């Protein structure tokens, strides 16, 4: 049996998930009450399911022509940034306060993805200065100019 390429497997999984969501939406739309509230969802979910199944079948047959999926290399680089961003958004922003969490996240992302050498004190000083600049701009924009009261918790 010939080996299936990684993008093809990814297309099958991705379109399978979308088809499953489409079928769930259709099932909810056709079973929930009051029926009047689900009239429009019924209409769109029907089209949704047809298109999603068509995409899924094409992915299984290997006919998908558009989209390259996520390569291993891309995923390896993406994962640390995505993890830091998700921890920031779903935990740190509220638990530590927007400014504290935002500053830590900014510094971590900058340090990880900065192409400048990581073994020179000068580059680290530069990163700290850029981070402090970011904090100052965000505080100036949102707290002082727009008067948005964000969760502040620890320091701000």
């Amino acid at each position, binding site marked *: 049996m010939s080996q299936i390429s990684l993008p093809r497997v990814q297309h099958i999984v991705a379109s399978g998930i979308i088809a499953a969501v489409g079928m769930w939406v259709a099932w909810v739309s056709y079973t929930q009450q009051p029926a009047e*509230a689900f009239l429009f969802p019924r209409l769109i979910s029907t089209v949704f399911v047809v298109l*999603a199944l068509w995409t899924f079948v*094409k992915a299984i047959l290997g006919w998908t022509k558009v989209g390259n999926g*996520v390569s291993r290399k891309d995923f390896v680089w993406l994962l640390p940034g995505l993890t830091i961003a998700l921890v920031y958004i779903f935990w740190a922003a509220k638990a530590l306060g927007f400014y504290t969490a935002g500053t830590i996240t900014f510094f971590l992302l900058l340090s990880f*993805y900065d*192409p400048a050498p990581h073994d020179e004190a000068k580059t680290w000083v530069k990163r700290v200065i850029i981070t402090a600049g970011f904090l100052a701009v965000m505080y100036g924009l949102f707290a002082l100019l727009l008067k*948005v009261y964000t969760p502040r918790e620890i320091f701000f």
Partner: protein
Amino acid sequence: MEFLYYFGDVFTPISFGLLLLGTIGGLILGATPGLSPTMAVALLIPFTFHLTPVQGLILLGAAYTSTVAGGAVSAILLKIPGAPANIATTLDGHTMAKQGKGAQALQLSFLASAVGGVIGVLLLIFLTPVLAQWALAFGPSHLFWLAILGVTVIGSLDSASVVKGLLSGCIGLWLATIGFDDIMGAQRFIFHPALGGGINIIAALIGLFAIPQVLTMFAKGRKAANAEVIEVEKHSIMDAVRELLRRPRALSIGTITGSVIGLIPGVGGQIAGLVAYDQTKKFSPERDKFGKGHSEGVIAAESANNAMVGPSLVPLLTLSIPGSPTAAVLLGGLLIHGIFPGTDLFDNHPDVAWTFINSMLIGQVLMCIFGLYVAGLAARVAQVPQSVMAAVVLGLAVFGSYSVQSSMGDVYVMAALGVMMYFLERFGFSAAPLVLGLILGPIAEANFIQGSMIAGATDGMASYFLTGTLNIVLIAIVIASIAYSVWMELRSRRYTSKEEIMG
């Protein structure tokens, strides 16, 4: 000539200050690779929340106009188009810069952008009220089909795959139904408390346009700063004006092509620039010079992509159908200020509509003036490393989506939709039809329900929604746009496979 009455409103200190801010900021944002005009406008929307509707729209309109033009700076000096609309500019603009004519290329691009842009906005001024009057005849069934047309046209024309484009539109329409329905007050698809109030449009726009860009920058890893900036030489602006006047063919083809393409919903600046470039080349006796640093290439591409901006707002302001993804984001900006574009915009809010349009006209002139002077600075900003850009955009996305309603739920929705969109984009789905579905979904549903009630009291659903000249015309356009896109997709695949066979 009603628009002349509202010209003075653009020159109030705050409005004019915002126009200047949006223009200069837009030029810098546009020149920054990785920041598309759509994303720049989406990130700016939370700031407009604290302004009046007119001021907010002036800021967004100025940013829209100048980000498109600013993209030429990095296209010419770095060979990196600031936005897809500037791809055609790269072909001759960067070659000119390498030949030591960078300043001339930049001056020509801003002058051509201004000419194209002003004519585009004049079209917007004169076409919009006519279409708005015509649109007054629309009933619920027509408005339902118009909303569906908006989603399907963008879904089919803006995507590499018609089926995936339409599927994106369906996902957007479904997302628009999350929350409590307007008539029965019933809960629909609320599987997390953050979705209780439905999906906030602004949080969704930020998530769908900004987060995939951030994740794309992460996936590129530790890329060094962008390509080396080519130093610009001194060049007289008057010489550039004379050169522009010597090229009326390129300027007129670019402007006409851009204006016509702008009127067609779903066909963006990228197509306008490339088609204008191609047509100018075909009509030019000097076609051999194209791609080798010919000024006609820059003039055609830049006049086209800015001429597209004004007309792309005609279907938005008259029929609520955005002509481009950025226009879709502008629609979100209008809706959060309680302004529904369409049939009664010019009757109920003439001050908002005309001041906004007038500001775009003045914005084109300001864009040209500042563009000629800040181009060098903008090119330096374009060299900011991707690591800094990604972290800044993430920070702005989180703070911006929170600031709309002071709700963590909006931040969660923004993040979830953004991550989902990144992966969907990797599999050939695009954000524009999804956003259109999300924005036009409530309009489509409200008119569908209203129409079904009328149909229940008259001849039935089929008769109400599927008969009548206007319904048939709209349905025919929906079908024709899908069929055309399918044909184009099949043709391009056949062409690609033929090229593969030929090696």
